[in-house]
């Protein structure tokens, strides 16, 4: 009996450990950021509330963009079990298409246009065209290459890898279209002038970018729309059923292929929408695809597959950890520690997965 009791204690400890570690880390991180933070860039939040607020807003707005992109990935990945490794390429191509459309609408002649020359339509139309075009490419991809091998995860992942290799090369070969600019050059679009300005938040004197706040709004809007679609209509149920057992779904009279095609198109379009936003927010270049594939993967992994809330949580966690670790890691000397924040970010994510293998909101496998 005594042995059993000691085993009991030990196990209990191990089981509580993750929670303990998580709570401990969070509390420590909070105390650090709020009250302590010696030898960091800004010092603790109580001393420099403006920087804290900016870091927070940077995190939230980046999370919104990550959500837009990753939700498309999550839709395809989580619901159809297709690991779409071409998601980053869709974003990249979407970004270039948005750029070309904005160029031609504003007669940019290949040069960056200024936001003062851009009105709301000059932004919206490119984004819509990009989303539609990539939706079309997504549809072709899904119909030609993925439709007939559903369920073969790896094979599909490989197919999309091959497609991403091809798209990457094609982008370098043809974009930007303007002949006086080198192919494969970085390009960017501009936000409409109306939102490309700073607004005074009247908190700690912080001025913040309206464009970034708009991005946050867009992210929320996409989230709500997706949620309504997936959880308030039959389409959502059908997709989830189809993922569980395609044949059976079909045997219930559901043309599951149509539903899958729609889901894929939506997912691809979200990548392009994200691409259009990213092109205004930072700009795209031929390395953007890998970067965003990785971002999407990480967000979806951490949040949990196929859950909208998971994607939200993943995006928030990733973006906040990213921003806060850059801002609040100590910087002593040249070689420590701020620049290790990318490493730290991913270590944290691995730890999340170690304790919750299915991601924050995922169903246990």
């Amino acid at each position, binding site marked *: 009996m005594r042995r059993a009791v000691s085993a009991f204690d030990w196990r209990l400890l191990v089981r509580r450990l993750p929670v303990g570690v998580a709570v401990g880390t969070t509390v420590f991180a909070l105390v650090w950021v709020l009250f302590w933070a010696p030898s960091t860039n800004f010092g603790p939040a109580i001393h420099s509330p403006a920087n804290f607020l900016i870091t927070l807003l940077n995190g939230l707005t980046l999370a919104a963009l990550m959500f837009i992109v990753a939700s498309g990935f999550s839709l395809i990945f989580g619901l159809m079990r297709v690991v779409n490794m071409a998601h980053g390429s869709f974003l990249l191509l979407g970004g270039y298409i948005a750029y070309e459309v904005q160029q031609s609408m504003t007669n940019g002649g290949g040069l960056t246009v200024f936001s003062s020359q851009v009105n709301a339509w000059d932004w919206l139309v490119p984004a819509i065209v990009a989303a539609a075009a990539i939706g079309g490419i997504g549809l072709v991809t899904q119909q030609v290459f993925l439709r007939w091998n559903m369920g073969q995860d790896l094979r599909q992942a490989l197919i999309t890898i091959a497609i991403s290799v091809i798209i*990457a090369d094609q982008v*370098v070969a043809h974009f930007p279209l303007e002949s006086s*600019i*080198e192919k494969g050059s970085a390009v960017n679009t501009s936000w409409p002038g109306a939102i*490309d300005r700073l607004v005074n938040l009247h908190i700690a004197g912080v001025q913040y970018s309206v464009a970034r706040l708009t991005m946050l709004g867009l992210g929320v809007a996409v989230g709500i729309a997706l949620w309504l679609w997936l959880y308030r209509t039959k389409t959502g149920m059908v997709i989830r059923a189809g993922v569980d057992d395609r044949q059976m779904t079909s045997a219930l009279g559901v043309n599951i292929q149509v539903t899958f095609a729609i889901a894929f198109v939506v997912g691809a379009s979200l990548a392009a929408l994200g691409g259009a936003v990213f092109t205004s927010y930072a700009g795209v270049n031929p*390395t953007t695809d890998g970067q965003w594939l990785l971002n999407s993967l990480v967000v979806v992994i951490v949040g949990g597959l196929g859950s909208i809330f998971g994607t939200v949580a993943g995006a928030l966690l990733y973006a906040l950890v990213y921003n806060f670790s*850059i801002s609040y890691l100590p910087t002593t000397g040249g070689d420590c520690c701020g620049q290790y924040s*990318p490493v730290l970010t991913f270590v944290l994510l691995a730890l999340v997965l170690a304790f919750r293998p299915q991601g924050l909101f995922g169903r246990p496998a």
Partner: protein
Amino acid sequence: LAAHSASVIRLAIMSDCKGAFGGAYELDIGGAEAALAQYAHGKPVSSKKPSAGMTGITIAGHPVKIVGYGCGNDTVPVAISETKRLMEQLKADIMIGPLSGDEAVTIAHYAQKHPTKTFIIGTAGSQDPTLQIAPKNMFRYHGDGAQWNAGTGILAYKKLGWRKAAIIMDDYSFGWTSAAGLIADFCGAGGKIVKRVFPPLNTTDYAPYVQQLPAPSKVDGYFWVVGGTGTGPSLKAYESAYGKVDPKKFVGNLFFFFQSGFADVAPRLIGAYYGGFGNAPGLKTAGAKQYEATMKKWFGPAGFNVTDSFVYNYFNAAHALVIGLTKSGGALGASLNASLPRSIKAGYQVSNGGQVKLDSNRQAIADQYPQQIVKGPDGKPAAKIVGYVPGVDQSFGGFFKKTSPPPGRSQPPCVKHKFPWAGHIKAVQNGVITKKTIG
């Protein structure tokens, strides 16, 4: 020359066809091939697509065959495997390339182990290949990233009146090297760097890094050494933190006006100074005109920007090769290495009669030309040469040594130091070097 030795000389050209500089592939090849066409009887198979190949190249009676084109992606592993493919599978004797800094480092190591082959760097800006590793069979006829910025820091101090500045640099060897030139120069003149920020390569969101920079009200200006694909995104991040860019507060490196930079970031930076590639595109010298005419002649239909410095550097590399091979009579290896010119006449250089000299490490000592982005007559951004910095060597007159720590996050330190060119930087006006000293 001896007819019996008409063996084929095997040449490889390596550039990047993927990654951040993937768009430069045809340009670089075009640059090298234009020299081969001009000086060695080569005929491009297609004047629109240089990588389609070239026929009829002959030097000192030897046919020269371009055995292959290397395709890097700005990473070390691909650079090395492409080099092996070119040198071992395709059995090239000579390579012109690679394109970027880390690639050059790794190829320098390769060169060290393959002494019978000859390597002429295409257009890479890292310091190590010639300062630290310095294989006897590797040559570079252009400056490194630090050299390219020589004088620009002094200009910021003297002409813009900066005293306190912050610097943001890519966190890898080229970023460090490029920043090193600015820091050494600016601090040497008496300026202070109050903050160094290093975003990693391929950063998705530069906002938190930009946030670390002191606000524009707190410093006189920023050295902006974020390059390749990061220039635009980092500037956008700056704009969304502090509003519009004030070009007078920004001094950059070549990426302010390089390749896509010209369309992507330069329009926002009209008026800003930057280091450039250390050469002087747009100088109205005879050499420059001749060079541009040559490029137009061979690859005019390809339509690319002949003043592009990548093209120019590849051109000079191939030009030097032609001279060297001619002198060695087609002999390779050590005798080619001995014959490669220690000084070449280069189009965008003016001092010493337009010469680029090599130092004992086979690294260029060259004049540098700080530049400014201006609005061109067509309304598009244009690069204007504003200064002339004579004879900058890789060690900055002994400041960088083989034994000193290489450029890094905190290297070099910010110290006052008199560089050889301090006090000798001349103003350039309308493409003409004036007598006026500006720094």
